[in-house]
């Protein structure tokens, strides 16, 4: 059976190595934090300038000088550190983050990522730190639904939306299957409520098992 959002977040959390420094993108990936145990020693980075970020807190407990990249109020964990934006993005661009997890509109079979712009002519473009993360993290994982609401695949032979980064995604986590993007091709690492043949047909691309 397909995973629900919480199960998917838990699955990703379980794959993050102990002690890793991790950036969780705005939106769905933020929920992964709930499934990271303190014993794992995973340390969360937020690009607005902090390592050791804690949980999202409700507005009534907010300190508005302490927010995540989505501008939600968060907490500070013991061992945290603050730094300015140039230092924060140097950390990202310099390849020091072990993993970042982002949402996506599309991921290509070659690991290209499109998650900032639908290409619609009237859309106001906004990119934030997505391109910096795509270019900088040691591993870029994507967490998304595998199909759009109208049933179009989001894991595609080539992205049709404007790119965020080229050949950067190494893993894709979806509600019906998980994938590793490898030099040999796209490898299915697990399926949930869907057969691999049906998956290959719906995605219209060769899949390694």
């Amino acid at each position, binding site marked *: 059976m397909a995973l629900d959002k919480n199960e998917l977040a838990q699955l990703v959390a379980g794959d993050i190595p102990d002690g890793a420094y991790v950036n969780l993108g705005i939106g769905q990936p933020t929920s992964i934090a709930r499934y990271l145990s303190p014993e794992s020693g995973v340390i969360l980075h937020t690009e607005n300038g*902090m390592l050791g970020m804690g949980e999202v807190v409700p507005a009534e407990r907010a300190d508005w000088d302490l927010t995540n990249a989505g501008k939600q109020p968060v907490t500070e964990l013991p061992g945290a550190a603050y730094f*300015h934006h140039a230092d924060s993005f140097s950390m990202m661009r310099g390849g020091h983050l072990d993993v970042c997890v982002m949402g996506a509109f599309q991921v290509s079979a070659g690991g290209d990522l499109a998650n900032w712009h639908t290409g619609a002519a009237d859309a106001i473009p906004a*990119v934030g730190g997505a391109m910096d993360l795509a270019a900088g993290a040691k591993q870029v994982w994507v967490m998304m639904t595998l199909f759009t609401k109208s049933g179009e695949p989001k894991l595609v032979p080539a992205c049709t939306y404007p790119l965020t980064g080229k050949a950067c995604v190494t893993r894709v986590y979806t509600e019906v299957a998980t994938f590793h993007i490898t030099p040999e091709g796209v490898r299915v690492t697990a399926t949930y409520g869907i057969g691999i043949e049906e998956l290959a047909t719906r995605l219209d691309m060769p899949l390694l098992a």
Partner: protein
Amino acid sequence: MRTRIVDALTAVEEVKDGDTVLVGGFGMAGMPVELIDALIEHGAGDLTIVSNNAGNGDTGLAALLAAGRVRKMVCSFPRQSDSWVFDGLYRAGKIELELVPQGNLAERMRAAGAGIGAFYCPTGVGTPIAEGRETRVIDGREYVLEYPIRGDVALIRAHVADRLGNLVYRKTARNFGPVMATAATITIAQVSKIVEVGELDPETVVTPSIYVNRLVEVA
């Protein structure tokens, strides 16, 4: 030269029509709201504003935009749930937008402050951001050439200053402040408190006084 302690309106008096103004903050954290209000009252127009976002709600940067003072926004993330002022101006063709990835925004200002003429950056390679820009392969990796962003003025918010102009920040409100302070000809810092010289621990100063020209205390 010596940092002057002044009120907000005096602090912004040197801003001229056509200036590039760096505005600190990430959302509202670190946003120098009172300095922006003073800039609106001051009246300078035809401004280029460099800031991560393009205003929230109807106050601060959004109010400056609504007052028609801004010719161009340079930012990484203009589109937000409450960026209706910018959205309206943009769709009406009344404001220019230069979209810059967030890290490039920081690094380009850092370059301005650090005397770097340009730098090769891996961010945005193969994306629309890199279109028309010079690229180069170095050690097998492709980079885009990025140029400094300088400000005539920077408006930033810090937590505590000493009377010399040394600054410390508070939590993630630090964000762009320390970088913008280095990148502008005149840096104006709004702080919650000004203390005597010697009250800040020299090990913990984030922005040294050399980068701060005007201090405004907003309790």
